[in-house]
């Protein structure tokens, strides 16, 4: 009975999207924090190249996180 009443395709999509987006956002934001913290450390230590590499990491992490938030709002408004 359960096999027929459950929408397995929708359920699979929800599981895959949730895992990818949920874990992805947390990882991206963690990388942004890592980048920002290390950027400040490296800059203070006078390591310009490393500092800018971490700044790049922070920008990418924040961009991914912001994109996820905007996409979430787009999904809400397009229901």
């Amino acid at each position, binding site marked *: *009975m359960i096999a027929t009443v459950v929408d397995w395709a*929708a359920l699979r*999509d929800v599981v895959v*999207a949730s895992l990818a987006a949920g874990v992805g956002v947390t990882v991206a934001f*963690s990388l942004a*924090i*890592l980048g*920002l913290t290390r950027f400040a450390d490296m800059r203070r230590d006078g390591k310009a190249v490393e500092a800018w590499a971490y700044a790049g990491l922070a920008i990418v992490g924040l961009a991914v996180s912001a994109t996820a938030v905007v996409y979430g709002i787009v*999904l809400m408004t397009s229901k």
Partner: protein
Amino acid sequence: MDSDLVLVIVVVTALAFDFTNGFHDTANVVATGISTRAIPPRTAVAGAAILNFVGAFISLEVAATVASGIVEADLVTPTIVFAGLIGAIAWNLITWWYGLPSSSSHALIGGVVGAAFAAEGAAAVIGEGLVGDVFIPALIAPLLAFSVAGLGILLAYRIIGRLRPGSVNRGFRHGQLVSGSLLALSHGTNDAQKTMGIITLALIANGSLANGSDPPLWVVVSAATAIALGTYAGGWRIIRTLGTRIIKMDPAQGFAAQGAGATVILASSHFGYPLSTTHTISGAVMGAGAAKRLSAVRWGVAGNIVTAWIFTIPAAGAIGALVYGVTRVFGTGALGPVVVSILVLGLLGAIFGRRFREVPAPPPPVPVGEP
């Protein structure tokens, strides 16, 4: 005249349910932010109330009709909806009293199913719908959110593990403001729609609105206002349970839980597989805690919450059936709903009158451990 009076009673009861929905579910949105001190309690509930209000206007899809596909729609009368709403309100208040986060949607479905069962017998209930649309998602939501939050926080700890706790906590607290806002907005788009759906259906059933009509503006505004006011009232007991009694969260765990909650809710909404906000957030909070250390989760509290979930549909259903039975004692007109409304208001006044005169202070922020 009788039908107009019943319509007014259903509208007022639906708005009362919307209010309880708001204050019952405030915790889903703000508990993690408050407990990690990302945002002061009063600011958190005020922000959540505003975003819930705004969220109610974002989507006007009223496909989420009351218990659609779970009870035979042709058999649902305004009196059944009224009894179902009373069942849902009663269960929301009982679980709030005990500080247990339970699903307002399930309470509403349970109330309507119970009232429909009392009115028309088993033929009114669609068993397959109940299993496929309610029971299975109730299992999926907490498990999925638990896994997403758990995996997310494990990876986050690997990335930020060697950094200074001060800057990490500051960063995640800022992140929580955004993830919490997204949660509040998505809550408004989902939950206010239920009340709009109920009132619109009642208006159509009464002949006040053409079949297939969108909800009138006053319905949208009143539903948005009721859920926002409920959210602002703040269900502090549940906030305390979700924010501090399951686990003591650090800001990274709070962010992972909110992020997991928001993405699972949005994904489920997008793919048409609706999951309960409450089940999702509670599962995410447990997952964020268990991933750090299994013993960090107070499993006794988690067990009480799951028990409340199991009892939500039968309990709200039993109350809905009882209310329908009492209503029918007074015939099929408006007298039954009027008498029940007066009884319910009297009961609420007796129980909560003293409590609401002594306005409770918001809970103080709880000291948080460092990652």
